[in-house]
């Protein structure tokens, strides 16, 4: 296991280092004087204030020293304080992380959960005009903009059942039913594209698996068709499925940021857009770093899971 883990951990370290360098350079790449731009969003720009903020952000030091300070603090969980509220950035991120994470996980559960049976059905129905129709339907599902779907859902709900409250957010701890009731529509809107892409994947992986020799062997030794399909073919078809779930998480996170705006959910999208409007670059920087690190970690775990699931890729 160590032979597998060590190179992967080294790769992980390189990627995280690169991500941190890019995020670190963000403020420094802003055309013009970033400090004056940041100040200009909220107060009058004076040379004194510029110097003070520059000192506070450490921008008056050599760039390598700046990076070392910043990265070391970030490793200890210190992402600095928000420019305008003065509160720790990490605290603001954690407050907004909950709704986005809930939305992402619900959509992932919904999309991935339904994709397996849908893909199996599609694999069984293959051939002839059904194939063509299925392709058109899945491509349409794949390319429907989630935020538009959300708007259509809100409109439909307002027309059909005006009494139901679809917008806003209540924490799960305060009102579990109200929380889930409001999350169903955004999660469904977000889940449809991944349901389409993952069910296509399951379908082709199932067809691939069903054509293998071991399936013929399983049939030849007289196993029930149900056992052949689900125990032998599906188990193998799920391997590429698991790998793509990792990538899907990143897509969902991005989609969630947009769909949140449609349903007025106070998640990371609200935090990020607010930070851009206020030119609160340290907050934006920290949010991108934390979310990307989380995404990298998810993909790392999925990678390991893939190794555990498929003995063939073990070295």
């Amino acid at each position, binding site marked *: 296991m160590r032979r597998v883990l060590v190179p992967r951990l080294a790769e992980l370290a*390189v990627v995280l280092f690169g991500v941190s360098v890019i995020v670190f350079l963000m403020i420094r790449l802003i055309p013009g004087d970033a400090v004056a731009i940041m100040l200009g969003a909220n107060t009058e720009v004076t040379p004194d204030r510029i110097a003070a903020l520059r000192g506070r952000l450490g921008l008056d030091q050599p760039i390598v020293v700046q990076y070392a300070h910043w990265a070391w603090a970030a490793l200890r969980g210190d992402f600095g304080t928000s420019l305008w509220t003065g509160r720790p950035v990490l605290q603001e991120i954690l407050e907004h992380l909950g709704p986005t994470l809930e939305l992402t996980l619900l959509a992932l559960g919904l999309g991935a959960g339904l994709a397996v049976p849908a893909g199996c059905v599609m694999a069984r129905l293959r051939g002839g005009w059904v194939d063509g129709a299925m392709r058109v339907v899945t491509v349409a599902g794949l390319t429907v903009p989630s935020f538009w779907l959300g708007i259509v859902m809100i409109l439909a709900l307002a027309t059909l059942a005006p009494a139901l409250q679809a917008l806003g957010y209540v924490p799960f701890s305060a009102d579990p039913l109200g929380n889930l009731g409001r999350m169903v529509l955004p999660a469904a809107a977000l889940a449809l594209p991944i349901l389409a892409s993952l069910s296509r994947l399951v379908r082709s992986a199932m067809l691939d698996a069903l054509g293998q020799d071991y399936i013929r062997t399983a049939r030849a030794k007289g196993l029930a068709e149900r056992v052949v399909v689900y125990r032998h073919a599906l188990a193998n078809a799920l391997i590429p499925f698991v790998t793509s779930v990792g990538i899907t998480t990143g*897509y969902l996170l*991005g989609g969630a940021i947009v769909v949140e705006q449609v349903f007025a959910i106070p998640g990371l999208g609200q935090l990020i857009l607010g930070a851009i409007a206020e030119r609160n670059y340290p907050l934006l920087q920290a949010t991108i770093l934390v979310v990307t690190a989380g995404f990298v970690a998810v993909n790392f775990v999925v990678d390991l899971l893939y190794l555990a699931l498929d003995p063939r890729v073990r070295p």
Partner: protein
Amino acid sequence: MLGFAVALVAVQAGLAVAAPLVAPYDPLAQDILARLQGPGAAHWLGTDQFGRDVLSRILFGCRASLAIAAASVGAALAVGGSLGVLAAFYRGWADRVVMRAMDVLFAFPVMLLAIGVVAVLGPRPGTAAVAIAVVYTPIFARLLRAPALAVCAGEYVEAARAVGARDMRILLRHVAPNLASVALVQTALLLSSAILVEASLSFLGLGTQPPSPSLGLMLAEGRNVLMLSPWSALFAGAAILLLAFGLNLLGDALRDTLDPRLRGPQ
């Protein structure tokens, strides 16, 4: 399937290019007295909250969407594709450095990286195109490197080298043509997602700025008057869907036609 996809994309692209000729109204012309109308004889798809013609704004919006998608995916193909092919051709440390850099860019969730780029450069349609190009560069690099490795190991490349062809000539004459089909399929698929990413950015207020006609922006503006007149938001969303759908179907059909090895089991 390929014929249908080509026809669909051709009609949409034709309408987008010819928008100034076929649009019934000026997309910026306001007619306050005729605002928030539903579909009718004067305005086929209705009007928005300023009385602007929805059909004209959609036609010009498609034009803007396609232009941004084409510019960004083209740039990503040129930069990412070249990096991937050069990495495969020269191998060694160049390969390692380039591909690690691509891994790093690939590590960001797409929307987050695009938002970050827009935040740095300022919200404008041009920056949205840059953002999408940055996001798609590693995808082309990774996607073209693998087949390029196989092509570069081919005997005809060795033969070309043996007769003294320069690297540049080998790359352009012998390597690139063999990668064209992979690149073409991926270009169509990424054009489709670029339409969606651009619409998302504009919807968030980070892409095209008002009053320019943009599909994502129309959705954002239409959402505010959804209960009064949903037409603008509904039609703009349908236009985004149709654009992305056509291009994705085209990529899918091209894949089946160009590369039998990529075809799913029949």
